């Protein structure tokens, strides 16, 4: 077993206080401002235990959203929301001919695809670019966070998000989403979801290091015969499209993105602003010119 040198020989089960730079021990990464951090979620390792959902709710003190059954698979969380910042999707692969029941099981895996979804902290974040108050800002860790004291609940970020992540809490009237545990990062702690993940499906780290690790993992899976493995949201990969340079929370998937409720080609809404404004302005100005024309005929008459 690999034990970090900092804790080797330390048998204490109760710590006197927070451990400085704890993330070095739990995630092998030193957290400091000015660097880019994110999540690499390897869906082939997810077992659907929902520890990430629980850890997120506990740390961020988020109430439950839905206390009933959705009737869809084992997923009673249903979706990301103002109060749910991690959501484990349960995809059961049924027979391709449309018949009832599961597919024949391959020897090395079940017929389940599970994936812990989260805010992607996009590079060129459409929610942040849409926010008129500056409540949504980019932190010193290159993540995207809502400042609750600034947000006035205009709710423009809600339809702006190409992944359906951010939402308004109807009780406090503010927008909420995953902060990538901004408070924990400031204290040198790994985000709660990644720390709680028992299979390391959710890996927290510096983005460049995560990209390298993820590419290695894809290569390894392809060598083992899982030729459908690919990255979603890494630079140049599906998900990092249409003006989104990359996603700070990126994924290893083994099926079309839509299967996991992800678009295959998400885009940056801000790229559509100028073309719309120019077309509309030209129309309005041209019709203003026409107004002068019609009014001049009045003078002639």
């Amino acid at each position, binding site marked *: 077993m690999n034990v970090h040198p900092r804790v080797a020989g330390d048998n204490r089960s109760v710590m006197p206080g927070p451990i400085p730079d704890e993330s070095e021990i739990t995630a092998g990464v030193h957290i400091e401002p000015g660097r880019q951090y994110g999540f690499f979620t390897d869906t082939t390792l997810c077992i659907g235990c929902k520890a990430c959902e629980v850890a997120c709710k506990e740390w961020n003190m988020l109430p439950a959203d839905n206390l009933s059954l959705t009737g869809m698979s084992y997923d009673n969380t249903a979706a990301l929301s103002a109060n749910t910042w991690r959501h484990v999707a349960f995809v059961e692969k049924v027979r391709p001919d449309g018949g009832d029941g599961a597919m024949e099981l391959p020897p090395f895996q079940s017929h389940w695809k599970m994936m812990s979804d989260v805010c992607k902290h996009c590079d060129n974040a459409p929610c942040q670019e*849409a926010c008129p108050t*500056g409540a949504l800002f980019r932190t010193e860790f290159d993540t995207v966070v809502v400042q609750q004291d600034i947000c006035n609940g*205009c709710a423009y970020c*809600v339809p702006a998000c190409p992944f359906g992540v951010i939402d308004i809490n109807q009780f406090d009237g503010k927008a909420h989403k995953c902060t990538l545990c901004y408070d924990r990062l400031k204290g040198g702690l790994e985000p709660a979801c990644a720390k709680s993940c028992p299979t390391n499906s959710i890996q927290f780290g510096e983005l460049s290091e995560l990209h390298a690790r993820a590419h290695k993992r894809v290569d390894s899976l392809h060598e083992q015969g899982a030729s459908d493995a690919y990255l979603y949201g890494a630079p140049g990969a*599906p998900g990092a499209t249409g003006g989104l340079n990359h996603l700070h929370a990126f994924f290893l998937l083994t099926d079309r993105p839509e299967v996991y409720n992800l678009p295959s080609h998400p885009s940056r809404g801000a790229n559509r602003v100028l073309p719309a404004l120019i*077309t509309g302005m030209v*129309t309005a100005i041209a019709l203003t010119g026409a*107004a002068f024309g019609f*009014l001049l005929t009045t003078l002639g008459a």
Partner: protein
Amino acid sequence: MDARTPAFEPVRHEPLPTYHGRPAVKPSLYGWTVALYIYVAGLAAGLQIVVTAAQLLAIPGSEPVAFAGRAIVLFGAVLGGILLIADLHTKQRFYNMLRIFRPTSPMSIGTYALMGFGFWSLMAFVVQAFHLQLPALVFGCLAAATGWWMTTYTAALQGSTATPLWAGAPKLLALRYASSAMATGAAAACLIALGLAPASGLARAFGNLAALAILVEAAGTIGWRMILRRIGVYEPLQERPWGAVHGAGAGLFGLAVPFVLFILANFFTPAWAFALPAAICVLIGGLLMYGSVMLAGNESARRPQDYFRFAQG
């Protein structure tokens, strides 16, 4: 193609997989309040533009029409601000809109457009009340120039979201909104001219402008519909209830009928008998258009198939 970075070919006519049919993006929380704002903002801007044009050309009878028009414009700008604040979920912090200017956010652009439009419209109204013609013209022109932004930024606002129906053809949505604003503004000016300067010929000029704007809007609507149908995101406007509101309400009642009536007003007397109902149709149809596009857009965001078809590159 490298299997490690697959490129997913667009799927247009076959169903895409979804996650238990769950929405993939969130619909906006905007409804009739914001639709009414878009309508009022466009109408006020269009009205300011056309009455200022009439005043600039010193058309006989344009002074009272411009003054009455500006009173309505001012009411519209104030009502617009109230509607926007009413729609905030934390209303007491509305002033945070003025903390920053963010050019990537049409909401931010619109905040300043509305502020500028409201301010210049107020100034134009006040100085005209004191019969100061030249300052009224200057402020009217400034208000009209900010009015151009007002007619169109709302389309950029919707077009830059991830809502398929709004984002599928943002340029033509902007053309629709701008021409609708000019049509409703001209229709309102036509009504004012019918009441205050019936012998001036202003009502006919405004009516003909409204007819042209309707023509542009109709052409834009046809193109917009074609693009959205090709992408496969138009269904919410073909189904109940928004299909009927958009097609029969905004299209037939708001565009086709008033266009014919405005044209007939040029050939038959009394002209007001044609222009009056035409202008009323345009004013009602405009609101139905913004409302149906708004609410059908929310419905399109709830349909994962629509979003996935839109988000295929």
